[in-house]
């Protein structure tokens, strides 16, 4: 039986520096889930559905087609990294809950992280810009209308309105 060489990597996850000894073939989505970050969902494993979306150095990527070793010495944000550790949700999370943008919830972490990336650059996005920002995540429940409402409400609140 083949014995695999374990590789040491360091990743900053949600602000904490974490050290791992990994099988170099493990994907980032699997490593994160094995370490308790269950907000990272597994769907297609092909980079199509987007439920495994995380932020890598502040940009959305699909962690099911990214080797964990590629995240070495880089910064990862998962949905667990948003909001207050005491349980107070982030403004975007709150807006998704209030607008009914969450049905089964499976795509929600990816949607929220994509929204965060968008609103960090642009607090007044047009419908097309929202559509472009969310285009990597598939939702089969909501028809996207409530999700658009949630993004707009988040933007309003982050602008200090509403």
């Amino acid at each position, binding site marked *: 039986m083949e014995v695999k060489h374990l590789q040491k990597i360091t990743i900053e996850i949600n602000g904490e520096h974490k050290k791992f000894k990994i099988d170099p*073939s493990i994907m980032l989505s699997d490593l994160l889930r094995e370490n308790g970050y269950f907000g990272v969902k597994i769907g297609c494993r092909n980079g199509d559905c987007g439920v495994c979306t995380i932020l890598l150095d502040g940009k959305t990527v699909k962690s099911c087609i*990214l080797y964990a070793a590629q995240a070495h010495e880089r910064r990862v944000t998962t949905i667990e990294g948003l909001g207050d550790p005491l349980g107070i949700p982030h403004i975007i999370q709150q807006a998704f809950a209030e607008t009914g943008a969450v049905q089964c919830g499976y795509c929600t972490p990816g949607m929220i992280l994509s929204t965060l990336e968008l609103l960090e650059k642009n607090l007044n996005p047009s419908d097309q810009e929202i559509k*472009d920002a969310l285009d990597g995540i598939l939702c089969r429940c909501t028809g996207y209308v409530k999700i658009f409402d949630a993004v707009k409400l988040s933007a309003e609140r982050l602008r200090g309105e509403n």
Partner: protein
Amino acid sequence: MTNPQKFLYPKTIDEALEMLASPDSCPIAGGSDLSLQKSTSFTTFVDITRLPINGIIEKDEFISIGATSTFNDLDHPLVKNIANGLLSSAASKIMDTPLRHQVTVGGNIVGRYWWSSLPVVFLALDGKIVLQSKEETRTLTTDEFFEKRPVHIMSKNELVTEILIPKEVTNYYGDCQRFSVTEAAHSIVCIATSFKKESNVCSNVRIVAGNLIRSPKRLTDLEEMLEGKELTQELIDEISQEAGEKLEKIRNNEIASGEYRKEILKVLVKRALEGALN
């Protein structure tokens, strides 16, 4: 699934080329394709994302695009200035936002993905590809680079380090038209064109078809019809009717028949040229 045994993280191009000289090693940048391959003989993955080849800068007569620039990095002022924003606009329509953060320009042109319009645009812009190995640095025209399969163009030890776009084309007219079943789906026909237009006379014409076969293809018969001529609606109609007639047989794929794709090609050529009328 591929089965890497080890990742290496070079900081310089020389270090990377040394590592890539080993027969069991291959470069990895975005990794979106490599991670999905069923198998590969390579066991050492050399992560080239830490190399200084991810910038977009002006360099002499060219705009240099580092090979590990991602598709979203092409949303850059220098790139947006090229031929009506031809390159940045085409890149923004391929795949989706998270994938465009991951997929790199170098990986995409070496991979020759049939669905990607980026090689089509690079060929339309008369780009150059810079390849480095331990022994030498050489620059190929995109005509040379896309003429044959990568395995016949590059050695295993070579790395694409940058893509050069001549500054001269910055003021050219350019357009890229693609057709896909949905906005986010893979394109099944793509046309990119660029040319100089002075007093409505066209020169240095390039019309390139893609997504039909594995490599982009210049439609030289159409280019000749337009070269040195005044652009009129009648000429555009004539040129578009000839589109695809000299191409080798356009095959059926899982989405559309070859015949259908050829008809779409004519429509896209027409649209791409009509944009230059105004």
